[in-house]
């Protein structure tokens, strides 16, 4: 056990003990490796592809300042976290949002936080934002929120944006939804982005690397696998649900190499994603792929 275990959660040891007792001694190693658990295995990598910095516009969240989030992620054993900015949802001055994001990542999370800038293809001269993300801040990718920026994926600007991102070697993270449609603020209802045009867009954009974040609430089964099969497309776990959901996802035909760990922290409790790896029966190679290898490969492909 590493010192990281001592982190704020005082009853972590008890939880692990309870888990071990319930799961049987034989699986103690697995329980430790799998999950809550990220914390117990010092050397194992854990790449969180879905975190946000700054403030969610509608409430304060635990860990919604960068230093606190970075500490939380480190204590949970995260070795790298791909960070967007909540400011990217509603702010119009995205150039400053992205510059701040990069600066925050450097100041509080050097080696841990990797900035993914926001691009809004509805804004005049958005191509300059893209150029600054790639050339100025040297970001490895961008994050898109079509349902907060008021466009659908069949808009011509989307095809152009994906093409330019691919040409610059930027990984594109497309966020389908930020919260449950049923409980949105009455003044801020943003219906989930319709992913239907995606398979076609992926096929017509050579070199595109795409990740779907918060996708699994609205995109499942054949609709999901057809998009994943159209090209270099991955999906995160943040909104995956169901008993033994990760194993069921793989059994349902989603290729292992397309599944990436993503917590959606600090909006979601970080532990949700990590416990999903424990709830499913997964082999060590499967765990290693989801925890980091797939993310590392996807990121490296752009370099």
């Amino acid at each position, binding site marked *: 056990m590493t010192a990281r275990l001592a982190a704020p959660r005082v009853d972590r040891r008890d939880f692990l003990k309870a888990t071990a007792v*319930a799961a049987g001694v034989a699986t103690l190693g697995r329980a430790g490796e799998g999950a809550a658990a990220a914390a117990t295995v010092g050397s194992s990598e854990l790449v969180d592809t879905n975190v946000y910095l700054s403030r969610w516009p509608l409430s304060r969240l635990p860990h919604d300042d960068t230093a606190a989030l970075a500490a939380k992620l480190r204590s949970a054993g995260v070795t790298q976290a791909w960070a967007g900015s909540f400011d990217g949802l509603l702010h119009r001055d995205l150039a400053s949002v992205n510059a701040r994001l990069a600066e925050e990542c450097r100041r509080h999370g050097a080696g841990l936080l990797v900035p993914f800038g926001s691009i809004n293809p509805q804004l005049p001269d958005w191509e300059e934002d893209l150029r600054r993300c790639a050339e100025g801040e040297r970001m490895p990718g961008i994050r898109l929120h079509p349902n907060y920026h008021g466009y659908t994926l069949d808009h011509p600007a989307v095809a152009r944006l994906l093409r330019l991102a691919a040409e610059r070697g930027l990984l594109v993270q497309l966020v389908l939804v930020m919260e449950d449609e049923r409980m949105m603020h009455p003044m801020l209802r943003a219906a989930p982005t319709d992913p239907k045009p995606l398979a076609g867009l992926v096929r017509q954009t050579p070199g595109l690397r795409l990740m779907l974040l918060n996708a699994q609430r609205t995109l499942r089964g054949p609709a999901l696998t057809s998009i994943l099969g159209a090209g270099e497309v991955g999906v995160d776990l943040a909104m995956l649900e169901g008993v033994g959901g990760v194993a069921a996802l793989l059994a349902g035909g989603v290729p292992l190499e397309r599944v990436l760990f993503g917590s959606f922290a600090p909006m979601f409790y970080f532990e949700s994603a990590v416990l999903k790896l424990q709830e499913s029966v997964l082999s060590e190679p499967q765990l290693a792929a989801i925890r980091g290898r797939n993310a590392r490969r996807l990121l490296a492909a752009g370099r």
Partner: protein
Amino acid sequence: MNFEIWDAHTHLSGVPGATPEARMAALLAAADRLGISRLCVFMGMTWHYDPTPELLRQANDEVLRAVRAFPDRVFGFVYLNPKHPQASLDELNRCVRDGPMVGVKLWVALRCDDARLDPLVARATELQAPILQHCWLKITGNLPGESTPMDLAALAKRHPRASFICSHTGGEWARGIRAIRPHPHILAEICGGDPTAGITEMAVRELGAERVLFGSDAGGRSFASQLAKVLGAEIPAAARQLILAGNLQRLLRPFLQARGVRP
């Protein structure tokens, strides 16, 4: 073991298996992997918004089979439909008075401030059975018979001796918590929604930890996402233990004692 986890809310749907016993086994296998030792279960393998008396009996029979297959680990709640008061009273007597079920589940047949609930609540109170009412506040629109936390508050006001569980904490929990706050005999059960950070902290702050219950809503949800709401919350360890098991143990004490189960 000094750290137990009891789940106040699971179902026989959304998990593989052709029989109630097989589905219960699947739920327990996943629960085991997260250290969850006991599960409350209700409603059958197929769900009905507005079940007839026959469908109620069928659903409860399936739950009885699941409970009898795993008597040391599973508690049943009897599913009732207040639109059929006599059939519901009969089911309550059959499944709780005559055993082995321990509570009442009400879903979306009828909004729970309706007077037709009163005889059911009175009988459940005599039997010391807690009443778990599905509550949700949907900006997209509730079902016609779907209760809000405000409806439950109205019902609870008429029944000060009953014991209520506001399931899902009303879905939109920041309003749900406020709606039930004045009524100490309503507990907030935090399952069923996304693991949005802050729900458990707010519930503990506004209601006190002794009024907050862990539940998962598995198989509709994962055990993981729901357990994260408690394990990930910034709350004292003592509060965590109350939420994960202590409060449910207190609520079910009459039944546990009758069955010789030591909480």
